[in-house]
């Protein structure tokens, strides 16, 4: 259908772009295990055997593999025709076991995360940390205070071993393997990711963070995250992503399932800064019960193609969903991001705020859906998409969809696309500010209300990243 325009993006040229600060990598010869390139039932069986998984999980994986092989590639969104599935390593195990003391982490892994600044952040601002290196979580910690309250923060593999019933009850229930091709792929070869459980009425005041790092080339990272926030509890979960600057592409395909019980609140923040040859194809969904709130804050700066539409299923009365999404598309990048809000119960409300910046031939698309079911009386929804185009090579699209099945609703959608105003630049420059700084100020102001929603340390980092991307953008 003509609804989906031609899939052309500019070519990414690694030499022409500035140095990517997380582009370093370490050799993989000390890895405990690397699967041969390509995907087969044998790879899945071997992986499951190495992880000593229960029978039902192996069945689940093999069924998902079947589904994956049958499902077609999506014929919309980003250009995925360049992905060479048979070249990826689907399972890379860097160390034998996860450790809980930073001293036991292998040197090279330690150096990587020290460069990124994880240990320091852990001491000062975080309640708990997990670090995933290629396919496995290599290090994890949780502050004593929260452990005492009964908070569980484990890697998904540990979670499956220690709480099999809780996992079995929720795993794959929100995003079944047949949901889409990449959810099926993840379901068959998932490894790592987080398992979080927050008991009733526990308010975890500091964020939990997982840090994802791809270290080897042609790697496939398929983390699987399950978060259960019990009644009246509150949690903020943050994930960060980086990868080395290899010339061959890597594939990152995650599945995130979140259950927000009655009166609970969950905020899930993503700071995605992959190197610009990573395919980032992610499925994220939250099930929101009565009086509960789910907030997705989604920052996409890196990757070659990102397709990600965090969703909220508002299933209980007065449930609330919020998505704040920011995308920056530079040369060779296509950020196809957005949100889905599914209203099933009365008095539910949701809002989506999306801001995108396209520059140097990048393409940023907003793709979203608002669905208000026949029983969702008195539901409200607002969608605001603002796009900033910095030059004539770049492109910006908005593909929203509102589906309304009852009359007691208020649904609004607004979108605008513009460039940086000459008058704005003139005003700033007449005050003695250089053109480059003036542009940075306008861009930072454009995304300011989203960045304000982040914890302070991340807000500062985010502004710095945007400034870094904007550097030298004046011809």
């Amino acid at each position, binding site marked *: 259908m003509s609804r989906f325009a031609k899939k052309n993006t500019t070519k990414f040229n690694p030499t022409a772009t500035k140095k990517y600060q997380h582009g370093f990598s370490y050799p993989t010869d000390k890895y405990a295990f690397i699967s041969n390139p390509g995907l087969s039932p044998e790879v899945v069986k071997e992986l499951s055997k190495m992880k000593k998984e229960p029978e039902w999980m192996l069945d689940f994986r093999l069924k998902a593999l079947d589904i994956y092989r049958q499902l077609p590639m999506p014929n919309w969104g980003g250009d995925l025709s360049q992905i060479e599935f048979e070249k990826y390593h689907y399972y890379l195990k860097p160390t034998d076991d996860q450790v809980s003391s930073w001293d036991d982490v292998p040197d090279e892994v330690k150096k990587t995360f020290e460069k990124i600044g994880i240990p320091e952040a852990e001491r000062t601002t975080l309640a708990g940390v997990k670090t995933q290196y290629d396919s496995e979580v290599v290090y994890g910690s949780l502050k004593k205070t929260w452990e005492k309250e009964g908070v569980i923060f484990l890697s998904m593999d540990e979670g499956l071993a220690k709480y099999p019933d809780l996992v079995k009850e929720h795993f794959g229930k929100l995003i079944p393997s047949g949901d889409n091709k990449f959810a099926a792929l993840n379901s068959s070869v998932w490894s790592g990711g987080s398992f979080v459980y927050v008991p009733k009425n526990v308010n975890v005041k500091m964020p939990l963070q997982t840090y994802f790092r791809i270290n080897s080339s042609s790697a496939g990272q398929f983390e699987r995250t399950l978060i259960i926030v019990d009644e009246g509890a509150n949690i903020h979960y943050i994930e960060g992503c980086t990868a080395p600057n290899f010339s061959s592409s890597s594939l990152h395909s995650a599945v995130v399932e979140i259950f927000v019980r009655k009166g609970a609140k969950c905020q899930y923040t993503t700071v995605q800064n992959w190197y610009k040859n990573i395919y980032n194809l992610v499925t994220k969904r939250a099930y929101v019960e009565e009086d509960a709130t789910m907030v997705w804050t989604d920052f996409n700066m890196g990757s070659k193609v990102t397709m990600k539409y965090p969703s909220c299923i508002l299933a209980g009365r007065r449930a609330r969903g919020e998505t704040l999404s920011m995308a920056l598309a530079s040369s060779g990048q296509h950020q196809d991001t957005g949100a889905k809000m599914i209203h099933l119960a009365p008095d539910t409300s949701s809002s989506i705020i999306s801001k995108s910046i396209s520059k140097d031939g990048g393409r940023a698309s907003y793709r979203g859906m608002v669905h208000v079911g026949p029983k969702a009386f008195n539901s409200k929804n607002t969608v605001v998409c603002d796009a900033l185009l910095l030059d004539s090579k770049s492109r910006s699209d908005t593909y929203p969809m509102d589906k309304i099945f009852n009359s007691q609703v*208020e649904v609004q959608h607004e979108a605008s696309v513009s460039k940086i105003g000459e008058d704005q630049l003139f005003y700033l420059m007449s005050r003695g500010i250089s053109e480059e700084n003036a542009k940075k100020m306008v861009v930072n102001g454009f995304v300011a209300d989203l960045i304000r929603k982040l914890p302070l340390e991340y807000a500062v980092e985010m502004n710095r990243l945007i400034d870094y991307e904007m550097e030298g953008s004046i011809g």
Partner: protein
Amino acid sequence: MVSKIIAMQIITVTNQNQKEIVITQPDHYQIDLVDPGVEVNISGKFLVTGKQEVNLEVIIHHKAAHTKAQTNFKGVVDDQGYLRILGRIIIDKNCPDTNSFLEERILLLSDQARAETIPDLEIKSDDVKCSHAAAISHINHQQLFYLQSRGIALKQAQNLIVDGFLEN
């Protein structure tokens, strides 16, 4: 997947012809703005009742610089009607100083009425001002109460509000 072959009505806007397009029949339209500097107003009003299903698709394609388009669609859906409005603004490369606005407003009168709005934007130039707005809502109870308290019957009050909605 088999895609339906849809006959598209193409309307070309040049320097010579119409500045005002009123769409009365729901169908598939493509409106091309081909000459630099042309301005066009596009509008349409639809009433859907009974078990009618109405589908309107309009593509506003800016193919030249300095073009302006203002598009307003309004729909009222009653009974078990279904109204779908797809509006898309496309701005080609090298079309600076383009201005386009698309508005889709739908009023639902019954609980079984359904509506879908899809306002798309595809922008390939940078010097543009382009925005769209879509809203789906029901009749405000306070407005109804006000009119009824003045002795106007419910059905008549509804009609007054619908008239007002379609007019401005």
